[in-house]
């Protein structure tokens, strides 16, 4: 193995600062104040590479004798080209038989070790993962390697898998959320795999087994793969198993680069869902920020990203228009966007959009209060600890950071960066990243009653499609 590096992520104490909550009434009792914050120690991370370019990260972790093994391969829809979901079809076929074992036999082998093995295909990566009893870690590595390296691609499974995907496709296209997200992505990422959420039925029906085999051969390889082993396990045995199982894998290509820059394409998209009791909203735009941008993350949290956010308090807790609104930053390898999601009662579609716009304007116009800023800092630091409280959480966080090129060192500086946030950072992030003239609005709802409401919203009225 080359390039052995040992990265110790320790002694980063997360201080949970106390926060005096302002109380309206004089006769109210104040909550007991927090005591001194306790330290939180990040797990120790060891990383190395095999000669064929496969990355490995080992993390001793946890109190139960279990281990999570996750392999993130930098392929997925990004490599579909014009063949939308060919990567999904390939991933499903890989699970049907590998290393001479059928899906049922793989499942039995994994279950005997106390786990299951699965592979999911995403936009930027395909992720194979399993969790087993720690003593089986080395065996589980081998099982997982077979899935990635030695799929059998039996001819007689193709039509079953194709039928499964065709059903998934038809179900997705009947769900208002999926319909809205597809339309939203197609506006934000035109002519890019991120903008092609679904194939046509005809397309899906046309893919051949040879195409599946070719996709696997061209896109799965050592250089694109990062293996994470998190939990309690015998390190020497696991290293040996990784070398034996993955050492002969072809290097394969480097990850595909297909960057897509924001182009300010703003649109209003209306999709009719006759008789629907709600409108499903996607409001957002592309953002041009560095990966892991803390200021944007903090601003998003306050705006719509957590339960106490301004938009949620407004359209849910004040107005009762919706149940589960939320905003987020989709940080993908080739491009990023911000989006506010909400399913709002149909009669309040226009009013909901008006309130969301109002909250964005307010964030751009004035710095949040000192209490709001401190609350967000505490929240982000608290979530930081909570999100690293499981083996799967640790593996998933590390894989996400590596995929974005941030690496585990991002965790070391996270709390320091969050603690340095100022109110001005929030305002600037909103001004710089969410100009209202670039906002895209997707509304899936009963247009016979919704359209008139949208004509009353100044930001939309001149842009409504026919």
């Amino acid at each position, binding site marked *: 193995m080359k390039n052995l590096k040992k990265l110790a992520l320790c002694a980063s104490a997360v201080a949970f600062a106390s926060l005096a*909550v302002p109380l309206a009434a004089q006769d109210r009792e104040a909550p007991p104040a927090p005591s001194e914050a*306790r330290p939180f120690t990040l797990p120790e991370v060891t990383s190395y590479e095999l000669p064929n370019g496969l990355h490995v990260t080992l993390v001793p972790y946890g109190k139960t004798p279990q281990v999570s093994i996750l392999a993130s391969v930098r392929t997925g829809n990004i490599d579909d080209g014009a063949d939308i979901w060919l990567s999904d079809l390939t991933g499903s076929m890989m699970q049907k038989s590998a290393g001479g074992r059928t899906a049922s036999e793989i499942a039995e082998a994994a279950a005997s070790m106390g786990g299951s093995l699965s592979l999911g295909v995403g936009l930027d990566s395909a992720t194979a993962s399993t969790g087993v009893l720690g003593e089986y870690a080395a065996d589980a590595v081998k099982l997982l390697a077979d899935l990635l390296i030695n799929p059998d691609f039996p001819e007689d499974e193709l039509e079953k898998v194709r039928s499964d995907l065709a059903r*998934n496709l038809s179900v997705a296209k009947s769900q208002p959320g999926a319909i809205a997200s597809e339309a939203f992505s197609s506006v934000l990422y035109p002519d890019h795999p991120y903008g092609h959420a679904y194939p046509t039925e005809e397309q899906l029906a046309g893919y051949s087994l040879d195409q599946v085999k070719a996709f696997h051969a061209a896109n799965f390889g050592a250089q694109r793969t990062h293996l994470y082993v998190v939990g309690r396990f015998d390190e020497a045995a696991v290293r040996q198993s990784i070398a034996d199982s993955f050492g002969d894998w072809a290097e394969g290509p480097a990850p595909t680069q297909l960057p897509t820059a924001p182009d300010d394409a703003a649109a209003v998209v209306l999709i009719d869902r*006759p008789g629907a009791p709600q409108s499903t909203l996607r409001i957002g735009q592309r953002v041009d920020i560095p990966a892991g941008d803390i200021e944007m993350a903090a601003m998003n949290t306050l705006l719509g990203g957590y339960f106490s956010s301004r938009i949620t308090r407004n359209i849910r807790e004040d107005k009762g228009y*919706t149940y589960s609104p939320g905003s987020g930053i989709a940080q993908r390898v080739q491009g990023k966007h911000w989006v506010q999601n909400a399913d709002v009662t149909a009669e309040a579609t226009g009013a909901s959009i008006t309130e969301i716009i109002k909250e964005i304007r307010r964030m751009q116009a004035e710095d949040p209060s000192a209490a709001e800023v401190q609350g967000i800092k505490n929240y982000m630091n608290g979530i930081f600890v909570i999100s690293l409280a499981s083996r799967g959480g640790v593996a998933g966080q590390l894989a996400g950071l590596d995929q974005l090129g941030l690496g585990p060192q991002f965790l070391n500086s996270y709390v320091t960066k969050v603690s340095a946030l100022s109110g001005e950072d929030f305002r600037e992030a909103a001004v710089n990243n969410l100009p209202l003239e670039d906002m895209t609005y997707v509304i899936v709802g009963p247009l016979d009653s919704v359209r008139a409401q949208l004509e009353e919203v100044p930001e939309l009225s001149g842009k409504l499609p026919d």
Partner: protein
Amino acid sequence: MFNKNRWKFTGLLVAPLVALALPQAVQSKETAPATAGAVAAVPVEYHTLENGLKVVISEDHSLPTTTIGVYYGIGFRLEPQGRTGFAHLFEHMMFQGSKNLGKAEFIGLVNANGGVLNGSTRFDFTNYFEVVPSNTTETFIWAEADRMRGLDITQDNLSNQQGVVKNEVKVNVLNQPYGGFPWLDLPQLANENWSNAHNFYGDLAELDAATLEDVDAFFKKYYAPNNAVLVVAGDVDPTQVMAWTEKYFGSIPHGPAIEPEDISEPRQTAEKRLAKTDPLAPQPALAWAYHVPPKGTPEWAAMRLIDLIMIDGRDSRLTKLLVNEKGYAGGVQGGINWPLGNEYNYNGPMLWSGFLIHGAEHDHEEILADLDAVVTDLQTNLVGEEELDRARTKARAALYNMLGDGNRIGLVDLLASFALFDGNPGRVNSLEQEISAVTPELIRKTAREYLRSTNRSIITLSPAPKDAGEQGEGE
């Protein structure tokens, strides 16, 4: 939260990604494991205050957080007739204001201190829990006591949450294909007793009919310390926790005794069928449910093993046959108390259910014939040692996943359920023995009685004909 698929408050699955601004959730879907005796016993302290409040403390210093749960012994089974959905609506009321924390302030206090929270309504309890930095443990014991002491709800707040809950029903049921299928539908078909057989999410008109008087009466009847358990798990000193608990909860008065209600179900003697048309669904679907053996019986433990052998996991018999071999569906899901809970967190009649969305090229009867074949095999032949071992390993894995998770939500749920229902939270340390005592003979005997076709209910779901453009039926 009511349906597992949606979040009401900033849930753990949602919050970390949003807040950390990381890319897609690369969560491993795992059911991990362990060998017998490999995990140290969970520390469990159990006390009861004079006012009847049960208190469970589990010390664990692996992370500087504390998980606090308050579980009230009132679930949607016992909500009043004419007020379907009320137990869940009431859950929302618990966030709308108490003496010292106004509307939204409880949530704000948790979030601003770096914590997350949620609440949920289930068959036999309503729970409220938060994961917070451990240096704020006293703060949240105080806050939970504040809302147990009394609520301060205005008509505006009630009306607001009626709007929120109606939107919850719309987003999870009315505007979705397969909305409410089969988790709301199966109990209504399979059960005879209204408590078990009504629409737990609630009829929209009945949700609208709720009044402040209803809220007050429900709180007085069910939200007393003698009908609740407080669980504090995490980075705490148990002696200190008991002192805080006495200080903040001790003076809340004991409520009136709660008369047990009849929630029993008669033995089912004929198969039930329902054909449902879902105009929003593009593909047919099939669901089934069997009544499970009473809790605490040997047959109940055998039923959990049947669950593991039949449907829980990719190596299950139904997955191998219906998915891998026959290719009816991409997956088959189900379980005991599925999908709203698990085999441990309920206290009354319960169903073991399963469902799949399948292609129109396969008839419902064709799939049912295969289900029957799998059931018949289990009723006829003894389960082999290898398969039984695998099922036991999976059971331990599921248990260790709950006990080993650093956020301790599964642990708190087990401790609370065993305290509320069994008066024995220490049962968490004997679950492996319960499972390992089951024999192949008992599995076969249990399958013969409880997987009888006359003990089951079946719902076939069909998409509307192509020319029907109407919006879905109400629930």
